[in-house]
C-alpha cells in the first residue's frame, strides 16, 4: 500500500533551491499560516512539560537521586541501579510473570475477537446481531475496580458464584485468589470477558468492507461456506490482524497491571508480581525513585526494541507494518 502511494504521487521538483531562496520559501509559508502555529501551541507545550520533561528526568535512573538536590544536581552513579535490579532474586520472577501473563493473554486475546467477529459476520439475523454486539461491548466500559469487584463476587471462597457451581457438582470450595496457580487464568480470562466484544468490532468493520463480488465469485466456483471464510474473509482481514498483533506484541512488558495490582495478595504474589506493580511499590510507596526509574527505563527500552523487531518482521513476511 505504501509503495503504491509513493508511485502514484506526482514527483516533486528535486532541483535544490538556492540557499537564500529556500529560507525565503520557508519564511513565506510560516507567515502565511502563522495562526496554525498559534493553534498548535498549547498541545506542543503540554507534550513538552508532561512527556518530554519526564524523558529528560529519566537520567535519575543513572543517578543517586536526592530530593533535596533535585534531578540535575544529584550525583551520577552509572549503571548501579540496573545491576542491582538484574542481580536481585525477584528479577526473574518479575520477568516470568510479566511475560507469562502477556503471552498467555496474546494467545487467547488475539484469536478470540477474530472468531467472535466471524460469528457476528456469519449470523443471518440482523436484529439479533445488533443486540448481541451491543451486549458484547458493554463489559469494555466497566472500570477496572468494578471489574475487580465482579471477579471477586465470582471467585471468592464458599459463597462465590464459581464455588456455588463447584459445590453444586459435589466439589470442595476453592480459594481461587489465594492460590498462585489460578492467578494467571483469572487475569487473562477476565480480560477476555471485558475485551472480546470490543476487540471484535474492528475485525467486524473490516469484514463488512469486503466486496460481495468476492463472495459471489467464490460461490460460483463452488466454494462452500468454510471455504469462503478461509479463502475470502480471512485474507481480507489479514492486514488488520497483523497491525493489531504488532501493537499487542510491542506491549508485552506493559501488561495491564491495574487489575493485577487490585487482585494481588500476599499469598499469590509469586504469580502476580509484575514489573509495573513492582515499580509502583518500590518507587511511589517505597520512595526509591532512582531504582524504580531504572526498572521503568529498562521496560521502555525493551518495549521499544520489541516493537521495532516485530514491525520489521511483519514488514518482511506480511508486507504490512505500522510505519
Amino acid at each position, binding site marked *: 500500500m505504501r509503495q503504491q502511494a509513493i508511485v502514484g504521487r506526482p514527483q516533486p521538483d528535486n532541483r535544490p533551491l538556492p540557499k537564500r531562496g529556500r529560507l525565503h520559501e520557508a519564511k513565506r509559508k*510560516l507567515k502565511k*499560516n502563522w495562526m496554525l502555529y*498559534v*493553534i*498548535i501551541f*498549547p*498541545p506542543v507545550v503540554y*507534550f513538552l*512539560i*508532561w*512527556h518530554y*520533561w*519526564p*524523558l529528560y*528526568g529519566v537520567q*535519575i535512573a543513572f543517578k543517586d*537521586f536526592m530530593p533535596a538536590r*533535585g*534531578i540535575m544536581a544529584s550525583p551520577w552513579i552509572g549503571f548501579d541501579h540496573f545491576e542491582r535490579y538484574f542481580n536481585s532474586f525477584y528479577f526473574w520472577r518479575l520477568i516470568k510473570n510479566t511475560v507469562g501473563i502477556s503471552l498467555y493473554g496474546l494467545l487467547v486475546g488475539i484469536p478470540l475477537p477474530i472468531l467472535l467477529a466471524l*460469528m457476528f459476520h*456469519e449470523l*443471518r439475523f440482523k436484529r*439479533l446481531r445488533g443486540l448481541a454486539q*451491543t*451486549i458484547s461491548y*458493554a463489559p469494555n466500559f*466497566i*472500570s477496572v*475496580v*468494578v471489574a*475487580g*469487584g*465482579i471477579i*471477586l*463476587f*465470582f471467585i471468592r471462597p464458599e*459463597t462465590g458464584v464459581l464455588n*456455588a*457451581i463447584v459445590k453444586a457438582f459435589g466439589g470442595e470450595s476453592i480459594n481461587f485468589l489465594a492460590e498462585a496457580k489460578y492467578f494467571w487464568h483469572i487475569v487473562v480470562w477476565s480480560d477476555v470477558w471485558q475485551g472480546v*466484544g470490543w476487540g471484535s468490532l*474492528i475485525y467486524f*468493520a473490516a469484514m463488512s468492507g469486503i466486496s460481495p463480488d468476492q*463472495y*459471489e465469485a467464490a*460461490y460460483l466456483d463452488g466454494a462452500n*461456506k468454510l471455504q469462503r471464510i478461509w479463502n475470502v474473509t480471512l485474507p481480507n482481514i489479514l492486514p488488520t490482524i497483523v497491525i493489531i498483533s504488532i501493537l499487542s506484541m*510491542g506491549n508485552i512488558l506493559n501488561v495491564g497491571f*491495574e487489575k493485577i495490582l*487490585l487482585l494481588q495478595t500476599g499469598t499469590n504474589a509469586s504469580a502476580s508480581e509484575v514489573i*509495573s506493580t513492582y*515499580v509502583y511499590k518500590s*518507587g*511511589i510507596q517505597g520512595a526509591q*525513585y532512582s531504582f*524504580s*526509574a531504572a526498572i521503568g*527505563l529498562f*521496560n*521502555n527500552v525493551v518495549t*521499544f526494541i520489541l516493537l521495532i523487531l516485530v514491525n520489521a518482521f511483519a514488514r518482511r513476511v506480511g508486507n504490512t507494518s505500522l510505519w
Partner: protein
Amino acid sequence: MLENVKRTRLDQALDAVNTAVLIIVILLIAYPLLFVVIASLSDPVAIYNDPLRLWPAKVNFESYKAVFDNKDIWQGFFNSILYTTIGTLVNIVMTTLAAYPLSRRDFYGKSAFTFYFVFTMFFSGGLIPSYLINKQLHLLDTFWVMVLPMAMSVYNAVIMRTYFQTNIPQELEESAHVDGCNDFQILYKIVLPLSVPIIAVLVLFYGVGHWNSYFHALVYLQTRDQFPLQLILREILVQNQFKDMVGATMVDERFSERMAVMEGIKYAVVIVSSLPLLVIYPMMSRFFKKGILIGSLKG
C-alpha cells in the same frame, strides 16, 4: 456472507451451530452483569446463601439505601463528575488544537510536529519521572493533577486528524479562506460543526477513561475529600473497608449476616457507580462503528 443463495446442507448446519454458539457466548458475557443486577435487588442474606439465581430473591432495596446513606460515596461521585467533565473538556479542546493544523495540507512542518507527538506513544519517561515532575510543579494532591497530566492522547488526535482529512472537503475551507476567514474562524465555524460524530466518539472515550481510572488518583491524591469514586469503590469492593457503613445498617446480628449485608452493599455500589455510563452508552453507541472505522484507517 452471501444473502440470497441456495445453501447446502453443510452451510445450513454451520449457520445453525453458529447461531447457537453465539447465543451461548453472549449469555456468558452478559451473565456477570446480570448477576450483579439481580444480586443488588435481592435480600442480601438470600443471595449470599444461594448465589445461583436468575431472578432477584425477595426483592428489596435495602442495599441501595445503605449506599445512598453513605457520605463517602456521594463525595466520590461528585468528585468524579467534576474530574470527568473538566478533564474531558480539556481533552477535546487540546485534541482539536493538535489535530486541526496536522490535517491541513499546507501546514509547513507537519511531519516534524507529527513525529513530536507520535514519538511519545512509543517512548515515555515512565511513572517515576512523571511523578517527580508533577511533584516539582506542586501539583500533588490538587485538583489539576487529575486533569493536566492527561490533557490529550496522541491516538485520539490521530483519529480526529484523519476524520478532518477524510470528511471535510478541502474546497470548503479554501473558499472560506477566500471569503476572509482566518484559520481559527475556519476551525471554529466550519470544521467543528461538521465534526459532531467524531467529537461524540472522543467524548465517550475520554469521558469513560476519566470516570473509570483509579491508578492515577491512587498515585497523586492523598486527601480523602478529593478521592474520585473509583478509589472509594476500591476500598469497598477490593479491600473490604466500609467506613461507618455497616454500623449504620446492622446493629446486633451474627457475623455471617453482617457479611451478607456487606456483600449486598457491594452489588448496589457497582450498579450505582455504573449508572452514568448506562445512561450515556446507548446514546453514543450509534457513533462507535464510525469512530473505530476511522481509527483503523491510519493516515
